[in-house]
């Protein structure tokens, strides 16, 4: 017995270190990657890099097109996906309870969330590019990405609404508020932090996506910044992909530099999301 106890104690001790190692492993790898990227790319980042159009000559190339394209995509996607996503989330959580339709919607959304992005690309290719003849334009890209992140926003909205206790909704009903008044005045403000967090994460996902845009045909030399949603475009991940595919060393450096920018955007957005989530969780203690 006591032998068994001793072995258990040793196992306990050992696991403590293994666990710590594994946890740090992920972080270390991330750090190595980041350092590697920084070493490769940081020197390349300057105003010219940010403000130049793409070029066949690595030293002349910049990310202006891709950066502006990313901003465009970000805004368009947000405009399309946020209202629909929040609305659908509200509907599912507050209205369509228990009906078979709601059940279907629920399963459907959980599945949509798991469908690989490239399949959305196929959808976008067929529907937006081919059938709606939008070509490989910003709007086609934004629509595709919107559909892609819609489930994320819906799920986040639902989760956030779920954390709003039934009790305060009942309180509102009990005061004679209508359903929509309750949602508008009580539920949404209370869930806003969670919804916002979800939206930021979803959009940060959208601006990191590459595959669906490739599928809808967005890889091209676009030496200008888009001016309307119908324009062709490039985005940072596409630019990175393009540069990675080029064999010249200069482009690898460019890719690294662009990755730094993309990661900075991604990390900042994630950071904001984490911050919001923490603040929101802290603020509201039911």
């Amino acid at each position, binding site marked *: 017995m006591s032998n068994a106890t001793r072995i258990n104690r040793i196992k306990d001790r050992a696991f403590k270190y293994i666990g710590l190692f594994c946890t740090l492993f992920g972080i270390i790898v991330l750090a190595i990657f980041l350092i590697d990227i920084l070493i490769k790319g940081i020197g390349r980042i300057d105003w010219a890099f940010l403000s130049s159009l793409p070029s066949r000559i690595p030293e002349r190339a910049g990310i202006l097109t891709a950066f502006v394209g990313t901003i465009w995509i970000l805004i368009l996607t947000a405009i399309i996906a946020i209202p629909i996503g929040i609305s659908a989330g509200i509907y599912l959580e507050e209205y369509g309870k228990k009906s078979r339709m709601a059940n279907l919607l629920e399963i459907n959304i959980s599945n949509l969330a*798991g469908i*690989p992005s490239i*399949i959305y690309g196929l959808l976008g290719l067929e529907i937006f590019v081919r059938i709606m003849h939008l070509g490989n334009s910003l709007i086609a890209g934004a629509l595709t990405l919107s559909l892609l992140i819609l489930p994320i926003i*819906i799920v986040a909205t639902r989760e956030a609404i779920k954390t709003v206790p039934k009790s305060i909704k009942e309180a509102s009903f009990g005061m004679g508020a209508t359903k929509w008044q309750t949602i508008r005045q009580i539920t949404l403000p209370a869930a806003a932090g969670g919804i916002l967090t979800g939206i930021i994460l979803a959009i940060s996902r959208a601006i990191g996506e590459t595959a669906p845009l490739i599928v809808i045909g967005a890889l091209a030399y676009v030496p200008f910044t888009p001016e309307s949603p119908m324009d062709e475009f490039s985005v940072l991940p596409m630019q990175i992909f393009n540069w990675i595919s080029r064999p010249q060393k200069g482009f690898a450096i460019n890719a690294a530099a662009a990755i730094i920018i993309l990661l900075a955007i991604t990390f900042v957005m994630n950071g904001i999301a984490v911050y919001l989530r923490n603040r929101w969780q802290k603020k509201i203690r039911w």
Partner: protein
Amino acid sequence: MKTKEKVIEFGLGLSALITILTTVGILWVLLVEAFSFFGKVSIIDFLTDTQWTPLFDEKHFGILPLVAGTLLTTFIAVLFALPIGLTIAVYLNEYAYPGFRKTIKPILELLAAVPTVVYGFFALQVVTPFLQSFIPGLAGFNSLSAGLVMGIMIIPLISSLSEDALYAIPKSLKEASYGMGATRFQTAFKVMVPAATSGIVVSVILAISRAIGETMIVAIAAGQQPRLTANPLVPIETITTYIVQVSLGDVPQGSIEYQTIFAAGITLFIFTFTLNSVSYWIKKKFQEKYE
């Protein structure tokens, strides 16, 4: 008042309907194209032929090499990520100080937030050269390095979801075990992990599903050569890579080449759909256990 409420409800419902339309759209797109595809290619060939050369004159439409490539990279990724992810989950839940856990989790989650094209870059530019320095036969494109990097990408998926599952286990259970004189190790593996099994399984399934559907890492680093092999050192092609490969060109709509990407797409869809459904089912089934 009543009408306003109705209108609002209708509007919200319409938004929800878009998600159904999306699914219908996906199914429709995949099925229509795949249907014409299977009009030309027998499904038996599709499932049994061991070669995939739809773009060539000598056409073979055996999906197996692509499936093999997909599964190989996925397998490598999960093999790598599962033990690490699970260990992290247990460590954070059972051993780490709350403060440490609170800071480390978002950082780990960053691993999942890194755009995959960036991972592709790492795989190709960092990991492959590194591996080549001690694995001589390693090709420039290979499933090993793509798989490993994909593994890194899905570590937080496993660790975070598993940790959530562990965290959701009532603290009282942990206390019960301590109260019986169990060590933390025993508590973790005899009580907490079994209690969180469903959540952990779900996390692994989702990770697998994610790996199967992952595109950019394999497209950049694993090669573009459909090949029925279990050798992690040589170039292969996954379903997703194939779709990217074809998309980079511009095959004429309506041609069989064009339809192949939908045939590949529907295969991918079936894989991930099945996995997602299983995880959804598990989640639903075990959800209310501790409420």
